[in-house]
């Protein structure tokens, strides 16, 4: 049944966990849509045959709806619409909430290509390698105008905005190659801003990743006009950026408060702001604080940090976020342990 409907509706293969569940609702909604619109069209046509005009100026009875009828035409559509909403919104909340144990990849869109960077090393233009059956979270940003990251086979899409991060996630179910398209109009070659997701069996992916790290190539996303090339992981690069930009003059790495809050254990810490509100220091907050530091000042600190908008490129900001994420007090503990001693502090 699934295959028949999918073929009739020209839907692409279902290569992610989200695709399967969202398509079920798709079939339901489209079937009801087709049946009801054809029914209304046929009913109008049928009335035309049944109640054709016999003579000009023919008189007709006065027909008015009862309250029951009017209630029915309100309630019946509403029940259908709300049922779809409940099912669809449930799926959507699932889709917008990445699980805890995702593998993260930074995605940068620019006219007219996609760049991918893994926190622990390799990076690529145009091709994203991911393991099957493992949730992957994408942290997306743009270097110029708005793009939109669209993988039809996964049924996912997320706008890619300059100056901020958006996130999306997926769990690919079948190894294979899947096309990435840009869905937000971005100029001359918008229609050629294509990429590819290569889904590999997990073991194969791990081997691939290892191989990438061995002969770690030049970081494509920091080369060229973005500054000097850098070899190493994103965390190492982030440390270099932090030193180069003077971040560490005010932010300590050892847990001591200084002119600004310490970066140790900052990631996913709940911070109380001057306004009394609390925020979770996630990727979005960290990036916002680099670009617009005075918007959300942590309680007890002075609004003295300058903005880094225009000074940090998108890969720089991504590297800084990764560097901050790597600073966990547990990591300082050097005694060996046999089992996991902490749950990574993530959502």
């Amino acid at each position, binding site marked *: 049944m699934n295959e028949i409907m999918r073929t009739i509706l020209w839907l692409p293969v279902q290569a992610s966990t989200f695709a399967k569940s969202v398509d079920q609702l798709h079939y339901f909604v489209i079937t009801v849509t087709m049946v009801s619109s*054809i029914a209304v069209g046929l009913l109008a046509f049928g009335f035309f045959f049944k109640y054709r005009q016999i003579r000009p100026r023919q008189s007709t*009875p006065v*027909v008015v709806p009862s309250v029951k*009828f009017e209630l029915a035409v309100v309630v019946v559509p509403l029940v259908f619409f709300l049922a779809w909403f409940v099912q669809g919104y449930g799926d959507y909340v699932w889709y917008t909430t990445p699980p805890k144990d995702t593998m993260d990849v930074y995605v940068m869109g620019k006219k007219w290509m996609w760049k991918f960077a893994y926190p622990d090393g390799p990076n690529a233009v145009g091709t994203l390698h991911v393991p099957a059956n493992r949730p992957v979270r994408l942290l997306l940003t743009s270097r110029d105008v708005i793009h939109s990251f669209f993988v039809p086979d996964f049924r996912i899409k997320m706008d890619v905005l300059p100056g901020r991060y958006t996130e999306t996630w997926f769990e690919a179910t079948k190894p294979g190659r899947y096309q990435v398209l840009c869905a*937000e109009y971005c100029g001359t070659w918008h229609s050629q801003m294509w990429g590819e997701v290569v889904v590999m069996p997990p073991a194969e992916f791990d081997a691939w990743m290892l191989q990438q790290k061995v002969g770690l190539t030049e970081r494509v996303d920091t080369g060229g006009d973005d500054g000097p090339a850098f070899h190493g992981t994103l965390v190492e690069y982030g440390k270099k950026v932090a030193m180069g930009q003077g971040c560490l003059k005010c932010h300590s790495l050892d847990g001591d408060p200084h002119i600004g809050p310490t970066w140790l254990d900052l990631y996913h810490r709940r911070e109380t702001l001057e306004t009394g509100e609390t925020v979770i220091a996630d990727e979005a907050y960290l990036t916002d604080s680099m670009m617009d530091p005075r918007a959300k000042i942590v309680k007890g600190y002075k609004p003295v940090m300058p903005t880094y908008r225009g000074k940090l490129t998108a890969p720089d900001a991504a590297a800084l976020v990764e560097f901050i994420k790597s600073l966990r007090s547990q990591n300082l503990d050097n005694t060996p342990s046999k089992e996991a001693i902490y749950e990574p502090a993530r959502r």
Partner: protein
Amino acid sequence: MNQHADSSALAPTEARVYQEINYLNADRGVASWLKTLDHKRIGVMYFVSVLLAFLLGGIFAMIVRLELTTPEPTLISANTYNRMFTLHGMVMIFLFMIPAIPGVFGNFCLPLMLGAKDVAFPRLNLLSLYVYWTGSALVLWGVITGGADTGWTFYAPYSTTTPMTLFPVLFGVFILGFSSILTGLNFIVTIHTLRAPGITWMKMPLFVWAIYATSIIQVLATPVIGLTTLLVGIEKVGGFGLFDPGRGGDPVLMQHLFWFYSHPAVYIMVLPAMGVMSEIIAAYARKNIFGYKMIAYSSLGIAFVGFFAWGHHMFVSGQSPFDDGAFAVISMLVGVFTAIKVFNWVGTLYRGAIYVSGPFIYACGFLFFIVFGGMTGIAVATVSLDVHWHDTYFVVAHFHFIMVGAVIMAFLAAIHYWFPKMFGKMYHEGWSMVAAVFIVLGFNATFIPQFLLGNAGMPRRYYMYPERFTTLNVFSTAGSTLLAFGFIIIAIYLIWALKYGDIAGPNPWNSKGYEWLTSSPPIKENFEHTLDYPEEPHTYHEPGEEVEHVVI
């Protein structure tokens, strides 16, 4: 027969008389047209203007469709293609769709339907036409010389960083907004103050109710698009950094502002279309309107909730999931109000005496398109489904079902219904039905493949596309030629009818709409004397006749 036939005496044996001295020839010369304060003449000038805009927008659409026949570049370059779809969108929306039904049939019919001599502010009415011409000229000149390539949506920071000149276009849209506001304001005041004695609120024709709801949106929402285009223009020229994050701005804010107008703008286009259908279905089924109050109030309901649904254009923009859910539910309420109308229109046909002519075929097509287009609207408002469909051809097909399927069907139906009233001549009814069948079928053939293209994952505004989308694109282009063919037939027989058509007489459809209570074409003053309105519009039985009352 006396040329100045008593316009209130609509005896059953009434002859087909052409009103020799009418609004078209009461004053002569180009200057008398350009300086006229007559709502009917202003309506006719709008008619000519929007038809030219439609022709222009249609040509751009055909160029886009022809280019898309193959996946590879053929006819035009990538940049030209981007300008073509920008032109198509801007001309069709700002120059054609927004002023089409209110500007032409609102102006022409509204005072006739209210038993009034003119609109409340005739000078303002003429001004709105001049403002429309000025804005349109500026937009067209700006696009042709400046090469705008942003799409009609002007999304920042693309619009603020493109090397093309945009300011004249943006300023043109800003000016066009004033035309829309003036028309809306004029109609609101007219409906409140110029109803003839006897026409109470609940006896107004439903077209008037629809125009009333439309006018409210025009007055309240249009300032926001004026503001938005002005801000984008200022940012583009002066580098203000309102929307460009590179200068500290927020690109999503621009989208909020844009859709705060442009979503209600959909109802500026579609509400008058619904009003036209209420008139036409009643007239051709010779039936009282089934559920008059429900249809009237649902127009106001759509106008109201339409203001709070804009965020459904931004489900994948990074907006919070809570907002997405709220906007989704509000959007679905629009669907409920539309469903009320649809069921009541179908109910109007029940036990009617249906006369089949071109307009009735358009009405059947309209019912199918509004249900399919409306329900696919609910489908894209279902947030999880929208993630896949967003910015694909599914959305393109959905809004063309509403804007072409519903609005153009209503526009064509309105032309065919009121043409005899406007010009006093009859066109060939047989050809009108042939053309209507071409249009309804051609429309389906053009846009149903586009729904499937969206399912398959083809994003909109694509100049080249992966080869797997070729088949459906070829079908769509083939369908569009059928559609174009239908329009050519209509143009031929209508122009022919203007000169050689049979005399229509005051009421060729035997309609009981109030606007038929005068001669065709109407005299300059509309009515020779104030009429009585003892009955509701579209009451299809003779005075004194025993009437069967049915409640279902």
